[in-house]
């Protein structure tokens, strides 16, 4: 095999080369494939329902996707480090009830929001400490948080949903800015920030490095255990943002809410092309993954398909999509 020097490259740079130049390429093949899948799915559904491709319905899809996508954003960081956060559903519930209770107690919005954010961040910080410093495997640590957060949510509320929110609380979930739903804007902002962090900051770079090879990263002088604390804290913060959005959407803090959301968030990340083994993946893929799940639900709803079939469909799509990715990777070798 003749070694290929840079100087022997053909003069014109291909689109692939140029997109690769962004340090972390914007569209991996998997992500592009998933985007095509999303668009294809929407087009197919639109054949059966004229309402599907209307602006209102598309907004509706993004609103339905918002909570899972936001959870997915933080989950992407965690999975990139070859970890997993199983607690985000329970943390979301805890955030909603704490925020609701603080709102009720103070009568105003801001303290409630801040309390919610603080709770989410705190849970994330604890996860990060347990995984990063105590070296407990992520699966176990976050499974524990799943139970603890859920338990706390039920304890502080005595199991009773919290309905007394502060005035203005419904904006985050139900309001609009320039005609665009607030959740849609929130998701956009969250993903934009996460994209910048992952592609343009040391925090993001270290996330990929730790996932790709924690030992080599440690030996390069990076404090990998401290880094993990950050990563799980980010997941906690996005869980809080998702929780506040959910609180606003439902108009109540449900201590039993968010059950199963963690699996949807993981599914979004995996659909988006991020490897569960860490070190490879794209945040925008997670957004597409979440939209695929929401579109699937939305489309099946409009077609009046029995709701429980949606579960089957999502499970099947997840497996098929990852299988297709395996085929793609194998053919590349």
């Amino acid at each position: 095999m003749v070694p290929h020097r840079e100087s022997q490259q053909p003069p014109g740079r291909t689109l692939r080369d140029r997109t690769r130049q962004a340090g972390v390429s914007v569209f991996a093949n998997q992500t592009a494939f998933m985007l095509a899948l999303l668009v294809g799915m929407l087009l197919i559904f639109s054949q059966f329902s004229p309402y599907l491709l209307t602006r209102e319905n598309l907004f509706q899809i993004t609103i339905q996707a918002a909570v899972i996508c936001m959870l997915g954003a933080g989950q992407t960081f965690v999975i990139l480090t070859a970890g997993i956060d199983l607690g985000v559903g329970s943390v979301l519930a805890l955030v909603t009830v704490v925020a609701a209770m603080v709102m009720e107690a103070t009568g105003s919005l801001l303290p409630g929001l801040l309390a919610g954010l603080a709770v989410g961040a705190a849970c994330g910080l604890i996860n990060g400490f347990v995984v990063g410093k105590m070296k407990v495997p992520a699966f176990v640590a976050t499974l524990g948080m799943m139970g603890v957060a859920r338990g706390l949510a039920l304890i502080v509320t005595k199991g009773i949903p919290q309905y007394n929110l502060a005035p203005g609380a419904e904006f985050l979930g139900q309001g609009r800015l320039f005609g665009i739903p607030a959740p849609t804007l929130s998701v956009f902002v969250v993903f934009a920030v996460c994209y910048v962090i992952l592609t343009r900051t040391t925090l993001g770079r270290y996330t990929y490095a730790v996932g790709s090879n924690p030992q080599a990263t440690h030996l390069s002088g990076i404090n990998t255990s401290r880094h993990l604390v950050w990563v799980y804290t980010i997941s906690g913060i996005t869980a809080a943002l998702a929780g506040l959005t959910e609180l606003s959407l439902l108009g109540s803090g449900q201590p039993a809410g968010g059950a199963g959301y963690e699996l949807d968030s993981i599914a979004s990340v995996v659909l988006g092309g991020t490897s569960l083994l860490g070190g490879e993946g794209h945040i925008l893929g997670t957004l597409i993954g979440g939209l695929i799940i929401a579109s699937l639900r939305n489309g099946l709803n409009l077609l009046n398909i029995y709701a429980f079939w949606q579960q089957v469909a999502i499970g099947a799509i997840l497996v098929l999509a990852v299988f297709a990715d395996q085929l793609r990777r194998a053919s590349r070798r």
Partner: protein
Amino acid sequence: MAPSPDVTSREGSGDQELLKVRGVSKRFPGVMALQGIDFDLRKGEVHALLGENGAGKSTLMKIISGAYRKDEGEIRIGGQSVEILTPRHAQDLGIATIYQHFNQVPHLSVAENLFLGREGARFGFIDYGDLFRRARAALDRVRLQVDLRTRIRDLSIAQRQMIEIAKALSLRSRIIIMDEPTSALTDRESDTLFAIIEALRDDGIGTIYISHRLEEVKRIADRVTVLRDGKTVGTLRADKADVPTIIRMMVGREVQATCIGRCAADGDELLRVESLTRRGVLHDVSFSAKRGEIVSLFGLMGAGRTEVARAIFGVDPIDGGKVYVAGRPVRISSPAEAVRQGLGFLTEDRLTSGLAMSLSVTHNITLPSLARFRIGKWLLNLKAEREAASGYVSALDIHTPSPDHAVQHLSGGNQQKVVLAKWLMAGSAMLIMDEPTQGIDVRGKAEVHRLMIDFARTKRGSVLLISSDLPEVLRMSDRILVMHEGRLVAEVPAEHASQELIMEYATGSR
């Protein structure tokens, strides 16, 4: 065993010939990995396959072992033309391959690994008595004494390799391919391996021996075939092939034996280690290294060389002793601290601890130095980062299709250069290099050596070279530190050093 005749004087007759490869070619997208390869293997022969990384040895081997399919050409086994479809098919044809990284299951026992897939289970139940009996018989053939119930991961590399060979023999293989079999063995273990290979020869088994160690190849092989850039350069009798000729065939031009002028090490002291102790591992190790110097740390496996490096670099804790960097006492409790003090560590195993394989060349090079590309407090200047990394890619002549390619696609020598670039960019003044040229081809080795010397002499850095390649140590060092069982037993200046002297210290016989 009669010496095998020159390949040009007599075509192997059908029944002497185990394997014949004629005109085999293999294309990968964008590159012709093999072109018209001719190769043959006789009964009871050890035939060495040589060539630089990228020459095609591994591709040829994979075709013979069934992992790849050839595009053109013919392969004959025992005179019959065959299409080797899968590794299992190759196994059925009597071909066994012993890879550099074994196909063993670490958590299972020796016996279970030997007969993985061939447990002889009845209705799913394994007869362990029978399994152990068969396993013991297999291990006796390679004279390996080991408890059959030991888990593979508790064994040494040498033992695991013997088990691989035993497995190959138990499959009634007639052709055994060995890829760099001695790279992780001590001299004594290598001798045992060679004795086994001689026994294989006597049994009429043909061995294809792939190695970069030319002295070794001359010792064990009957014939030598050299590949270069996917083509066969030639096949010689091993006793008729001298090392310069082989090297010339491999690289296509004369490679000067680099003779390093010894510079008077009058630079400042960069590192001093006093009474470094780690209970049970290191005892009272003291030495120093100056700017401009290449100091080698030599010793047999288990002598404690890597442990010294890890202790200095803050990977392992120390129980006693002091470390001084540029005359100042320091407490290095983590790699991060070591990096801050200007140390760099090129580890023994690039794959597991040197590089993040899924990350690009650029990202690997800049990893310790990311902070310097910050704009403001949070953001990174990606363009500056790319340019800086590209600079090192050219300066070190790293062959990669682009700096954004994942390092896992690079050859061993180029990967090592990426690791080196990483530390150069980090501004290390003192580089600890643990077996830097292990598993790298001749040309790659020469380049790493050149860069090492350039770093020491021109850039006035200091190198602590840990190596078990004695010729390399003798050629490159200004001073040689010899370790034996956790103690520093000798410090020998280059002009007084000889292979015998160093080995005497290393084996504790002096």
